């Protein structure tokens, strides 16, 4: 359809009487770091779930890497075929699996050869600096360590697009700043296309090439940030 890696065209989603997303259109090119900013309940999480394939739009189209992923009322590409890495707000680490096996589940699912899995998992854990925690279970980790595991799990499958749903919202300010900087470093290192949802202006300043503001389900403004202008 066009050269965008991710494209949303007039996407709408309604839950009962609540208009969650209203005619949202968006173009994301490879390597972009987008921050979607808005108050609670403005539809930003729903937009992320539509991109991931966890919801189906009522109308409009979603395109991924030149292929239509979803149209009005139907999904052409199931979630697991979209090449998405997703960091959930509550992290959703699988409690019955160790850190290593949380990552292995992803690698097995993307059909990575068995021989390469350990090295890839270690690489991802090193990226977020928790390689020593691979044999721990999620409940044995601190909040910050869990965030890093969630990030490693989202990155280990080398996704086309990394989606983050307010992943640092429950952390204390100090840890939040540290992890935000860490994520910015990863973006620069990996050049991964990122869509990050938040209600915090501070996140946008550090993480975004472009800030998209949402209100009541609608995209009301799109702004390039200093980071992009400076080519950071």
């Amino acid at each position, binding site marked *: 359809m066009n050269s965008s890696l991710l494209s949303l065209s007039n996407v709408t989603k309604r839950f009962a009487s609540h208009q969650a997303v209203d005619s949202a259109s968006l173009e994301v090119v490879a390597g972009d770091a987008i921050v979607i900013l808005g108050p609670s309940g403005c539809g930003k999480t729903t937009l992320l779930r539509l991109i991931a394939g966890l919801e189906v739009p009522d109308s409009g189209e979603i395109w991924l890497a030149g292929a239509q992923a979803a149209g009005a009322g139907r999904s052409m590409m199931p979630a697991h075929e979209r090449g998405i890495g*997703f960091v959930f707000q509550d992290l959703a680490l699988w409690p019955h699996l160790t850190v290593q096996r949380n990552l292995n*589940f992803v690698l097995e699912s993307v059909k990575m050869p068995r021989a390469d899995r350990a090295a890839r998992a270690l690489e991802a854990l090193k990226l977020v600096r928790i390689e020593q925690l691979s044999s721990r279970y999620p409940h044995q980790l601190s909040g910050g360590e869990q965030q890093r595991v969630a990030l490693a799990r989202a990155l280990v499958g080398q996704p086309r697009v990394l989606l983050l749903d307010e992943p640092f919202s429950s952390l204390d300010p100090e840890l939040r700043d540290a992890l935000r900087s860490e994520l910015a470093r990863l973006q620069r290192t990996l050049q991964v296309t990122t869509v990050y949802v938040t209600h915090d202006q501070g996140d946008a300043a550090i993480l975004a090439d472009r800030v998209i503001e949402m209100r009541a389900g609608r995209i009301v403004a799109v702004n390039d940030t200093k980071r992009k202008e400076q080519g950071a």
Partner: protein
Amino acid sequence: MWRWQSSRTAVVGAAIVVFVVCCVLPVGYLLTVSLSSVEAFSALLLDARQRQLLYNTALLGTGTALLATAIGAPLGIALARIALPRKAILRLALAAPVLLPPYIVGLAWTYLGSSRGWLATLAGHDLLSAWTYSLPAAIVVLSVVFYPLSMLATEVAMRRIDGRLEEAALVVAPPGRVLSHITLPLAAPGVFAAALVIFVLAVSEFGVPGLLRVRVYTTEVFTAFAALYDFTRAILLAVPLLLLCLIVAVLAAALLGDRLVITRRSAGTRPALFDEWQRPATLGAFVVLTVALVLPLAILVSEAMAAQSISAVLAGSGRAIVNSLVLATAGATAVVGVAVWLGYARARTAGRMGQGADILFVVLFAVPSTIVGVGLILLWNRPGPFGAVYGTDVMLLLGYLARFVPVAALALAASARYVPVSHEEAAAVSGAGWLRIMWGIVLPQIRLGLAAAWVVAFVLACGELGVSILVAPPGEATLPIRVYTIIANTPSSHVAALALLQTAVIFVPLAALGAAMSFREAR
């Protein structure tokens, strides 16, 4: 805060005394008596006949647990994760067989499979009679009765799983892989615990093995006591069964942990993982419903139609019907009257003491009915004031208390957990005493739980056979005893009609409860 002089201590203490006397003492006393004759016990165990008994009992329990889980777990998954049509009604209908007395389903089975039964008539020749009265048949019948336990436990376990965990997997893996690697492992403890409970209930069952002529411990205990009048042998036979049930029940309770009384659903979304399987799942649910509920009832109706008149059926059974209704009503009221305080106390007790109480409740509920019966006789059949009670209908009430207080206490503990402690504290600081707080604040908030506990206790009491048949006074009978004892020498149409009457007695209050719950949900 607990204080010795408070009304709370007096009321809960009284409930604990009743619980100990009715539920703990019979089993404890039986164990004590049997352990005092260790030599006879070990001699009994070496007997090849007893080893066969143990084998049959273990096979009945294992086979039923496996088959019931194989039927129930997929239904639980479907109820939790697939948008089935009219799900609330479907769930209620699928759960109904567990409330039927098992011997009623067994009775329908004998009418279906005997040499002149339904299947033989339809096929024009004998198909099933060779194994109508067999161990595999008992496994099938008990699985049909107990699969709802696995279904409901699986559904609850699935609903407790945070949907985000599955969504996080769905982003990288197809639904089948998400189910096998994420959902099922997380739900496994609940499913496994339900299988253990089914094992215990199956090896504790008396009516179905008795009806289908399968030799297991429960039937041998009954035969030793009621036919051979060999009380020592009955006690000794009860011990291996009791130990087996206690071990498995402790394991199940430990697996479930705090989940026995905390039934809150998890936060997060419920991904519709398998909506594309809606049609086959619906079809499967209706097949199970037909086999487990519609077919047995249809067979009984068909048999009953041959009865010449309703008065002929009721002749001789009127007293048993009235007895059943009166005793089940009184029994359910007494059970709830004791269990509500125990449940409240459990809900307000945290830590190991609370978990210990859960294990005790589960273990006591798992004690086979014939063993409870023998324990009650041991305890109450003696000179003095105890003897005055023995030989009266009070023994039946004691039997209901012994069997159903533990499960009612667990259910009411789960209800009481939903009432925040702060509600009581707010009433206390405004000057209300504990009884007033319970009457005005706590009990009104758990009234639906109380109603449900009463109805379940009533239904269970109506169908109770194992204890009743042992402790009922001479000449007195409840409907289950009447049906069970006339099977051999009464026209099948009369037996089927009485079984149907008993089914109606069970389903009418259930339907009323279902309607009350629907009304509340609609509001």
